[in-house]
């Protein structure tokens, strides 16, 4: 059996813990074609899982000689094992977010150094794919998200064959994310959201695996014929319709991520936490598809418990 081309990309010596390591897996040799990154945060289990599926498949394809000559693929399942192992979303000591530290600074603080160490290894690739997560816990319809930096390539994003390509305007803090900096350094960067984050969702992980293989095949990086996927619909993030909880309380969801809903359809109920009295029936204000659903038992007031992608004629 062929040995995995495993490499330590960045390392920090620790005092009492095992050393902090960012490990990458390389496939093929030659032009830096695509870099795929999984988790940067401690709760991104699905993101690691998807990468593990990609690594397994690429190993199989490499064995069959199906990685194109002169193309190199790098997969980094996790950029932050310390936080994953202690179940903390951000950096263990100071709670900083590695994905707010790019392009990093090799002489700076710890997470700036980690970001710099990772960025040094990922910045020269033609394509960059990151499995990302949202700060609010919830489930997504699988989508490719791109920031509108002027360098985004929508036609390429559609080649993943995921149901949606979502474009959004960068906010101030986005300028320190990997995706943004990849684009600044002229990598075609894509953030992929599968359905879940801290729970493994095998169906959407499979969809993400297919999407990545589909994309690599279309860029002639691998030789592969698989599931073609969807003809992606391109949506602007600003056109998403937020459906909010007017009251705080128990949240009972009736529609799942990816489900088509009609205007007026019941999406959820909010009930009083002590008496079970009905506080609000949350209905769809437009017909469309559920892009995001908040998946916690209790909702805070004003929480966007659903985000809908309206039918094209409603935008």
């Amino acid at each position, binding site marked *: 059996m062929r040995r995995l081309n495993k490499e330590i990309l960045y390392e*920090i*010596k*620790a*005092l*009492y813990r095992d050393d902090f390591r960012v490990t990458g897996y390389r496939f093929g040799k030659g032009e830096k074609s695509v870099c795929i990154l999984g988790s940067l945060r401690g709760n991104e289990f699905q993101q690691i899982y998807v990468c593990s599926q990609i690594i397994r498949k690429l190993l199989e394809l490499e064995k069959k000689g199906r990685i194109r000559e002169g193309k190199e693929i790098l997969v980094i399942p996790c950029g932050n094992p310390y936080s994953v192992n202690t179940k903390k*979303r*951000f950096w263990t*000591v*100071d*709670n900083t977010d590695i994905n*707010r530290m790019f392009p990093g600074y090799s*002489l*700076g*603080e*710890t*997470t*700036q*150094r980690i970001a710099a160490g990772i960025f040094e290894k990922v910045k020269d690739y033609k394509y960059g794919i990151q499995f990302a997560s949202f*700060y*609010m816990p919830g489930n997504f319809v699988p989508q490719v998200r791109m920031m509108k930096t002027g360098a985004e390539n929508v036609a390429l994003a559609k080649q993943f064959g995921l149901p949606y390509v979502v474009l959004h305007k960068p*906010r*101030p*803090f986005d*300028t*320190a994310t990997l995706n943004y900096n990849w684009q600044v350094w002229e990598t075609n960067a894509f953030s992929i959201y599968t359905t879940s984050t801290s729970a493994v969702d095998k169906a959407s992980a499979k969809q993400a695996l297919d999407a990545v293989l589909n994309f690599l095949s279309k860029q002639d990086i691998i030789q592969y014929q698989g599931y073609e996927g969807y003809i992606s619909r391109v949506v602007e993030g600003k056109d998403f319709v*937020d459906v*909010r909880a007017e*009251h*705080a*309380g*128990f949240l009972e969801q009736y529609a799942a991520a990816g489900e088509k809903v009609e205007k007026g359809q019941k999406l959820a109920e909010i009930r009083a*936490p*002590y008496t079970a009295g009905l506080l609000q029936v949350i209905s769809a204000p437009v017909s469309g598809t559920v892009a995001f659903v908040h998946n916690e038992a*209790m*909702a*805070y*007031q*004003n*929480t*966007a418990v659903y985000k809908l992608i309206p039918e094209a004629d409603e935008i």
Partner: protein
Amino acid sequence: MAAQFENFEISEKKRQRSLKILKYWRERMIEQIETIAETELPVDERLKISRYRLMPDGSNVEELERQGRRIGIVTGIHGDELEGQYVCYELGRRIKEEASALCGIVDIYPAMNPFGIDNITRGIPAFDLDMNRLFPGNRNGDMNEYIAAEILKDMKGMALCMDIHASNIFLTEVPQIRINELHKERLLPIAEKANVDLVWVHGASTVLEATFAYSLNDSGVDALVVEMGVGMRITKSYGNQLTDGIFSLMKELGIWSGKVPEVRKPVISNDEKGEDVYYLNARTSGIFLKEKEHGSMVAKGERIGIIVNPLGGEILEEVEAPGDGWLFTIREYPVVDEGSLVGRILKGV
């Protein structure tokens, strides 16, 4: 004995008289505690952001605002930074001691992030968000965005706002004001009168555009960011120093007619290019033992502290000053990772 008794009588009379005067003015000063933003929480509680307002009775808020006689003191955006708690208390206490000298509005907001203060947490617990990256907020957004927007709305009309931070739980700082280079022209002359030891003008950064102070300055309200002391602790001497500075600024703005102490002249660092400061980052993970206090002058090669390994009893690194200067930041929290900041030195002071 008789003479002493007589003196006592006189001083007691004086005391009673001054108490009477104080009572008279206090009765003519309005003290209001109001909720400026609130939201419902899931179980039997509301999240409320409170404002403590002091102003002379009978005054018109709009009129005082038009005259530039309203100041805001804000703290607790980071829940584990408590230095501002003392300043808020002391400011209110001193104003009430001399209520006759108040001729404007003083708005005190001691807890912008009550969840954070309650949970000893820098960010907003439950959401793991840094509140100082949420501004200007959004009235139609989620709970935190809504609160941020409502807070900002309440600042409208202020002549000056001071946002008091305490570095973080890791670092101790000399009292200082930090100014974004974009707002230097407007803010530097004000900051110089705030009785701090250092005014640090730093380069602009897109990430900082989501801070409370940036949003205020952007909207036309002058806002100064104060950093002093250390997280989770109160340094009363710094609190008193800054409170003196606030009174001095209040006098400038026509909010206070009482006597104010003379303010110190701060060191000004025009560090827009980021070349004025040596950053001392740990080269190794370990336990940092400081040997110099913040505020010390240090010479090139002088030892600031050591990083040790208790598992083996050895020194892993000697942290030395890379050049002469003023150690205005020192690490308080002993555990360091490779890269952790252990100190900052202002060059050539």
